[in-house]
């Protein structure tokens, strides 16, 4: 028993591994209920149009159709995941705002009948002028998408910390660069699905969700139900990455169809409809100005951004704030100005995608810093080391940073990538680049205002002590929280992982938790679980002390054995003590809850980006560029993370792999493309190009020693952090290889080829 921890810090197999490899794991789309109907939503074919009339009579007459609904049949109350801008209706009332906007829905006995019925609904539209570009949408005279928002400005941010102008005036060198991001989509492999059962005044929804709590809250609000009369259950979820954080038309329309028919209704999106619903990454136009002294010390930064929000708000207000709020995390500077317009367009709404708002600005900033380093004749890695944030510091926008090993990350990635041997020394066509990143370990404030704790947990030990069940509202969408929380529970209880069971993410049986977003659960749900486990352990030790007639303070419990610390011969098993507890007092239960401390400043938007802890990462990538085709072949990527104490190393590195993979897709290939009518041109998984197994480079994922003081066992996040540096890292490697800079994402082969051509022409012209 020399090791510090018995259960955490070990790569135990995933608690749901077996059911997932045998095909037994049930996802929402796999569930069936007696008498269940199938439902689908009719969507708008126009990007912007007035609805003149809807005639459902033919559809209603089709045999097998049980209900057809439009805006007339549902509450007119607007909803949305951001309370400051509720701007969506279950069905459009008088106007559609993007291709894919919700117009009507059908429930029928089978899928084939549903599709036939959708075709029989006659909607008469008057097509209106549409706008697809945020800059054009902000101009006077542009089509007005929501009457309440002049010039289509959904969110406007002007934050000013210190004195940027003064910093620029005093700087040795100031430069401005502009970059453009692209719209990407989360593309979880499991399509969204929801089964609604409205019976006897109670609504039960089985759904592919990242947050049963927010679904419950918003569904209850929409229908005027008590929270207790809405049960949201998460079966297994096949990936979310931010796209399954908010309720969709599937839940709202499905609920109404179920109420009208008195039958369970299964609704689902096909792949095309997933793209149309979207809520993916916002396309940002990013102008950055930075002033540095002659040693490369950053004196001030001005981030001036515009983002395409699409037709609705979704989680976009937070995205807009995050875009600027996260930039100062990695480097120490005092003067910072952030301006942002999030603009409505007639495209699908954007929301929160892995790294929420931060990856594109990080790409821009990390490219920009490399360009500054070149201006100064400095090694870009050296420039980053010189500015890297240190522990126990405060950002200009008042985020308190406790643990921070960014410098150690940079030093380590320098060493393992062979940076000093390679930078500027690789043959033409081959290059190396660096970028860093940081991310929150849980949002400091919930999405809507409430004083509920952020996480809660309950552990019930079985009557004979042979197992214990963790009840948690935390949401495993594949990242492995069910596993790490069971490890944490067993550690805190002095129990064994192998005997843990879990019931999670069901608003009726598990205690409240806000769910899977902002990389919050290992820290926040973990804190609640630790407290619950410690309460179980305290009761076990007290019972054992009584059984052994010994002072409780002499006892400890580890891996299912209660023992006397001075004489380990004196012991009892956890199970026999637990059984005795049940005989004497009834159920052995531990409870825990967690709320972060009050965080952040007092300025407008100060809450977004606050967190009890921040992860840090440095990435280096090595690329080979084909001069003829512009093809980017990523040879290797090294990622070094500061993510605090590690609960499960195998799952942690797997998170890095996956986050990096997503960053790589966005860096080189992924982009949702629209035609001139606002229709998606590549709403499928062959033309929206996800990286395949053949595209992935060699990945090395390593860690630095770190422990977060304000977290259970010192944990921090990892799941989103590794997405953030990748795009900038690749861009810098391409520049190192070829001497060309691509100013927009994705860094496609064509753009690299064009940049090379331009360079050749310029050199030929100049020479």
């Amino acid at each position, binding site marked *: 028993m020399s090791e510090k921890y018995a259960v955490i810090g070990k*790569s135990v*197999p*995933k608690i*749901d*591994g*077996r059911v*997932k*490899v*045998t*095909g*037994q*794991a*049930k*996802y929402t*789309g*796999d569930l*069936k209920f007696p008498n269940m109907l199938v439902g689908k939503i009719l969507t708008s074919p126009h990007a912007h149009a007035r609805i003149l009339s809807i005639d459902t009579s033919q559809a209603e007459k089709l045999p097998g159709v049980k209900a057809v609904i439009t805006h007339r049949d549902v509450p007119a109350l607007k909803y949305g995941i951001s309370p400051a801008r509720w701007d969506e209706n279950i069905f459009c009332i008088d106007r559609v705002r993007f291709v894919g906007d919700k117009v009507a829905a059908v429930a029928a006995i089978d899928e084939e009948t549903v599709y036939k019925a959708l075709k029989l609904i006659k909607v008469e539209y008057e097509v209106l002028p549409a706008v697809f570009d945020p800059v054009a949408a902000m101009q006077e005279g542009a089509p007005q998408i929501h009457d309440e928002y002049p010039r289509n400005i959904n969110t406007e941010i002007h934050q000013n910390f210190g004195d940027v102008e003064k910093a620029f005036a005093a700087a040795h060198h100031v430069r401005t660069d502009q970059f453009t991001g692209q719209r990407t989509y*989360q*593309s*979880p*492999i*499991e*399509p969204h699905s929801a089964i609604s059962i409205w019976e006897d005044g109670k609504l039960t929804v089985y759904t592919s969700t990242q947050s049963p709590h927010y679904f419950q809250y918003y569904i209850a609000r929409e229908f005027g139900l008590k929270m207790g009369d809405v049960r949201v259950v998460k079966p*297994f*979820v*096949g*990936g979310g*990455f931010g796209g399954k954080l908010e309720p969709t038309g599937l839940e709202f329309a499905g609920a109404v169809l179920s109420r009208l028919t008195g039958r369970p209704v299964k609704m689902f999106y*096909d*792949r095309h409809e997933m793209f149309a619903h979207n809520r993916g990454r916002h396309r940002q136009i990013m102008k950055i100005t930075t002033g540095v002294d002659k040693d490369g010390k950053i004196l001030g930064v001005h981030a001036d951004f515009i983002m395409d929000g699409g037709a609705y708000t979704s989680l976009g207000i937070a995205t807009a704030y995050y875009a600027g709020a996260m930039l100062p995390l990695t480097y120490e500077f005092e003067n910072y100005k952030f301006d942002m317009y999030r603009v409505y367009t007639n495209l699908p709404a954007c929301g929160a995608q892995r790294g929420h708002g931060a990856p594109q600005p990080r790409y821009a900033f990390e490219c920009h810093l490399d360009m500054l380093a070149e201006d100064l004749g400095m090694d870009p890695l050296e420039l980053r080391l010189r500015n890297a944030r240190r522990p126990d510091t405060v950002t200009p926008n008042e985020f308190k940073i406790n643990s921070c090993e960014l410098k150690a990350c940079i030093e380590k990635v320098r060493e393992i990538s062979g940076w000093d041997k390679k930078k500027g020394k690789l043959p033409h066509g081959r290059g190396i680049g660096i970028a860093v990143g940081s991310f929150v370990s849980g949002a400091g404030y919930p999405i809507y205002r409430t004083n509920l704790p952020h996480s809660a947990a309950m552990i019930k030990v079985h009557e004979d002590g042979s197992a214990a069940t963790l009840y948690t509202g935390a949401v495993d*969408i*594949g*990242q*492995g929280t069910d596993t790490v929380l069971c490890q944490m529970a067993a550690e805190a209880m002095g129990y064994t992982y192998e005997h843990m069971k879990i019931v999670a993410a069901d608003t009726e049986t598990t205690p409240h938790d806000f769910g899977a977003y902002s990389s919050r659960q290992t820290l926040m749900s973990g804190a609640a679980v630790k407290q619950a486990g410690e309460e179980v352990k305290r009761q076990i030790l007290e019972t054992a002390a009584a059984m052994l007639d010994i002072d409780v303070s002499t006892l400890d419990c580890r891996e299912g054995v209660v023992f006397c610390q001075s004489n380990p011969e004196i012991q009892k098993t956890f199970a026999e003590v637990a059984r005795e507890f049940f005989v004497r007092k009834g159920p052995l239960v531990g409870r825990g809850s967690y709320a972060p401390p009050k965080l952040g400043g007092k300025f407008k938007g100060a809450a977004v980006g606050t967190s009890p802890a921040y992860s840090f990462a440095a990435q280096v990538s090595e690329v080979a560029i084909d001069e003829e085709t512009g093809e980017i072949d990523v040879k290797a990527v090294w990622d070094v993370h500061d993510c605090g104490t590690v609960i499960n*190393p*195998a*799952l942690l*590195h*797997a998170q*890095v*792999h*996956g986050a*990096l*993979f*997503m960053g*790589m897709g966005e860096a080189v290939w992924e982009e949702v493309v629209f035609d001139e009518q606002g229709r998606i041109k590549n709403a*499928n*998984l*062959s033309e929206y190009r*996800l*990286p*395949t*197994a*053949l595209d*992935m480079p060699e*990945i*090395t*994922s*390593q*860690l630095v020693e770190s422990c977060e003081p304000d977290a259970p066992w010192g944990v921090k996040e990892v799941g989103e952090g590794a997405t953030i540096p990748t795009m900038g890292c690749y861009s810098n490697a391409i520049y190192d290889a070829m001497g060309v800079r691509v100013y927009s994402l994705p860094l496609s082969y064509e753009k690299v080829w064009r940049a090379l051509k331009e360079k050749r022409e310029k050199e030929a012209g100049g020479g």
Partner: protein
Amino acid sequence: MQAIADKDGVKRYLVTLHINGDSYTRVVKANTLLVNFLRDDLDLTGTKKGCELGDCGSCTVLLDGKAVDSCLILAVEADGREITTIEGLARNEKLDRLQAEMINHAGVQCGYCTPGMIMSAKALLTRNPHPTEREVRQAIAGNLCRCTGYVNIVKAILAAANEEVGEGSGDE
């Protein structure tokens, strides 16, 4: 194939499919997809649907030993043929080596691509018991995973092919 027509003249066909060693005789429409037949008629929901266009590979099954997208095959095409789904891999309690290595190497995250991924790997190892890493990557190139970056999946398949290869993930 025996066919009967309903009152609208739509024909249904009597098919027998041999799935995971058992024979199932059912009446299907001409346009019934194999994936829907497996999931809806037989409740074999281990075979997933991710795109219904043959892009994602979640619905991969073995048809006479070859990996196919069951969303691109009609049930009538599979009449009389041998099909293996993810449910047919484990022998009683004992997992197939591929299944076990996927767990050991943390190759499973959300799990939605997992059944299809394992079936593609199974077809590979059946025809090529000692593949190179490149061959593994080629074999699963039609199976999209959004969680893992394929890193641990490739390790798991290599480990299943060769007991010598790969203990643990290799990360530190």
